[in-house]
């Protein structure tokens, strides 16, 4: 009964303190649309290639460029956006400014050398030159596409077949995963991480206004208080998750995953974020402190959960045949991996059982540390 009353009271307070709630609920959907704008929008998901054609009158150079332009996605959109430039300095400047991903130079004797090779079967075709920034992930991809298309074109023209061809198969649910798709799991986790503020606020409000003293004197135990808080925040976490998922769907994201399984992991992740927010709240006494100092654990969670930038993995140890990485000490990082498996690879519970157990174990450890700190600090 007391847990229910405490739950209803906390829920009302969260609804009435709507600024923090709105921030928590809308933050991740906002980033879904932002990511869509940069990565999900078909107009934005091509690779820019700057080309200097020093063989403008040559037949083969023109044909080759047309071959590059012909490459399309499964939705019929061009993969490479070819932009002709006049001089090397301009092209290199474009690379530095990230205005283009790859810069290709076609030599002046390309068509002539190719013609000689075809008719006399002597000599070699003058090589193309590619230039790009290795730190730009799109450079390598664009260069691979150009290589593949160029060798295919040469093969078709000369009739020479390579002794081996690569067969490409794609991970996922039988469709090509786009970069935007890969960010959705992390953005769903981000929507739950935002609860760090709503859950923290539920505790810090009591401390700041000293209503915690009234509760300490009453018969409400700290366990009952935390249970009410946890249930309340899990519901808010699931609402955040649902809204973010709807935002992703509205931006064209598709999945055929098990929604109950997704929400089960969502609820567990919420529990883990609540646990971390309890620890955070034990070191903060005001709402101002929560919204300023609280940003530190928030960014730690966001950063190490791959929300905006996938991080290289640093091995930690192997547990029952499952590799754990350094960022797995944060349950939200493991949650990102689990949700990615569910959403993009249609994984079942058995596929993610290890992640489930790991998140639960970590969340429980953080929860008990939080309760211990809370009791110690507030004698409650």
């Amino acid at each position, binding site marked *: 009964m007391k847990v229910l009353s405490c739950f209803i009271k906390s829920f009302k307070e969260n609804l009435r303190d709507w600024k923090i709630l709105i921030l928590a609920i809308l933050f991740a959907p906002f980033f879904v649309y932002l990511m869509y704008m940069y990565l999900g929008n078909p107009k934005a998901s091509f690779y820019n290639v700057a080309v200097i054609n020093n063989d403008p009158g040559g037949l083969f150079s023109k044909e080759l460029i047309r071959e590059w332009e012909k490459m399309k996605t499964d939705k019929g959109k061009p993969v490479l956006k070819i932009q002709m430039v006049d001089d090397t300095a301009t092209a290199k400047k474009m690379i530095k400014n990230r205005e283009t991903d790859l810069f290709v130079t076609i030599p002046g004797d390309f068509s002539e050398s190719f013609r000689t090779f075809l008719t006399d079967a002597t000599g070699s075709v003058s090589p193309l030159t590619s230039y790009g920034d290795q730190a730009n992930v799109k450079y390598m991809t664009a260069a691979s596409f150009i290589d593949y298309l160029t060798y295919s074109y040469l093969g078709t023209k000369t009739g020479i077949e390579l002794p081996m061809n690569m067969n490409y198969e794609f991970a996922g649910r039988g469709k090509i995963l786009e970069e935007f798709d890969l960010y959705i799991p992390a953005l769903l986790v981000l929507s739950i991480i935002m609860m760090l503020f709503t859950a923290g606020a539920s505790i810090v409000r009591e401390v700041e206004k000293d209503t915690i003293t009234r509760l300490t004197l009453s*018969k409400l135990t700290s366990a009952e208080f935390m249970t009410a808080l946890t249930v309340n925040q899990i519901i808010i976490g699931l609402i955040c998750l649902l809204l973010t998922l709807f935002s992703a769907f509205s931006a064209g994201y598709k999945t055929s995953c098990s929604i109950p399984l997704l929400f089960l992991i969502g609820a567990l992740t919420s529990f883990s974020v609540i646990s971390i927010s309890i620890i955070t709240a034990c070191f903060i006494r005001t709402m101002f402190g929560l919204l300023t100092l609280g940003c530190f654990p928030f960014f730690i969670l966001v950063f190490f959960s791959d929300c905006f930038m996938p991080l290289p993995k640093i091995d930690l140890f192997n547990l029952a045949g499952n590799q754990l990485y350094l960022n797995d000490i944060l349950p939200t990082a493991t949650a990102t991996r689990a949700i990615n498996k569910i959403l993009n690879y249609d994984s079942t519970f058995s596929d993610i059982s290890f992640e489930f157990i790991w998140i639960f174990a970590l969340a429980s450890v953080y929860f008990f540390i939080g309760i211990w700190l809370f009791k110690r600090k507030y004698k409650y």
Partner: protein
Amino acid sequence: MKPILKAESLVKRYDDVLAVDNISFEIYRGEIFGFLGPNGAGKTTTIKIMTGLLEPDDGCVTIDCEDNGKSIGLCPQHIVIWENLTCLEQIIYMGQMYNMSLNEARKHGEELLESLGLYVIKDRLAKNLSGGMKRRLNIALALIHSPEILFLDEPQAGLDPQSRILVRDYVRSIKSKTTIVLTTHDMEEAEKLSDRICIIDKGKLLVSGTADEIKKISGSEDLIEVDITGEVHMEFIPFLNPELIAGMSESGNKISFNIKEPVPALENILSVVREHNVRVNNLRLRKNSLEDIFISLTGRSLRE
């Protein structure tokens, strides 16, 4: 009579500061116990120890109640309310935290709000209440579970005269069912409300008893205040009759004499003053107040 609360040799230290220094007292069922002292005297620390919010370094507090968990109600000095709940919501919530049923908490809560003049705004969010209303709600929250001992820490601070009367009358009305420990700086209020008073300063208990008993510790019940022109010259003091004057203090151009017999003392003071060519501007004869005793015990220096 068996005390409802017994504090024995309480000691509390914060680093180098001795906040409570070996304080002992007893509070009896059904009385209003005034707890007076200047800022930083150790009142709030003592109350925190009595309510169980703070562990003493030494000594103990014994409470003789049926259910210790429900026995204490605390109305803190600062306003402690849930800003985003309505008056009724939070009073019901607090009642339920003391294991009251929803109906029971609602019924008692509405009665309390009625008694404290808050019923008409029971559905208003606390953050939208005036300062006085918040103060009264602060008191109501301490009373929802009908505690056997109620600690009222400066309950009337920030209240307008109408609200002060309302709260004073309400405190008196619950006295038969609830023992009240009242801390205040308002000596008049303390005198009007309290059955017994104790004064503490620098963590020490200075005096305790009824207001009349405390007033008598100065050796007199009457006071003559003399306003003089110019600087106060104390050369005439040795010429006053010590059998008539129990003590004196000065402040600016005013000298206060604690007197034993008003008429002879007045004659003695006037004659001595005239002989020393001191010009008297004004002269008052009045009863010794609790504030006079408080100041004489704790001094005039400002506290934190």
